[in-house]
């Protein structure tokens, strides 16, 4: 834990690998939230399908 993090360096982009993993995970989670089916999504009453 006391060793410095490994850094990803590509052109002007410089970011630590742990931060890159967190941001990548957030983007993946956001994409899943958009496409994953939501349980009981068709049962709304206000303008329901």
């Amino acid at each position, binding site marked *: 834990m006391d060793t410095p993090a490994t850094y990803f360096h590509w052109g002007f982009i410089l970011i630590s690998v742990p931060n890159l993993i967190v941001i990548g995970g957030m983007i993946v989670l956001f994409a*899943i939230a*958009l496409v994953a089916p939501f349980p009981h*999504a068709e*049962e*709304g009453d*206000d303008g329901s399908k």
Partner: protein
Amino acid sequence: MAANSPEGATPRESRSWTLRLRRAIDQHLPMGHLLPDRQPYYVGSWVYVFGVITIAALAWVIVSGVVLSFMGPQWWHDSRLGRFVNSLHFWSVQLFFIFMVLHLWGQYFMAGWRHGRAATWMIGVVIFAVSILTAFTGYLTQQNFDAQFIAINAKDAMNSAGIGAFFNVLNFGQMYGLHVMLLPIGITFLVVAHIVMVRARGVVKPIDAEGARS
């Protein structure tokens, strides 16, 4: 003393501020809006869950923070339970920020400020800013070498911004007071206002549902 009871008076006539306030709450915040049991069909998406998870994470942050402030630094560094609660506080904050940003992305891409919701959006922005300040003061009050390292480096940024005299990151007492008292009260107040405003107007329609029946 008026012949009519305050109950029968119109809001403009009434001199009772409690009556006027109660009527305003009844008019703008009916319980059906505050605690709805059904939602529009477009709320059936995981994107709408990010805000709720953010609130859940904040609840854990506050609960673990209260325990930490009650027990003190010796406990949170030296005992096994203290380290666990300290970690619970830290990781709840990580989840709070992760899901707050996911909530922000969702609201940004669906333009959540539409139809009179600009103030709700702007309060959300202020919550984000105050949360960063709260997390920063939290890093400064860990009572370890990491906190000292951050404080020594941050003081130059504060001085260059001209606020070093008012916001002294080397002053543990000031940072701790801000972290456990003023900033959490501010965040809690703003989050409650944010949620009440969301409930008062309901969830914004997705852009592709604009033309659909309401």
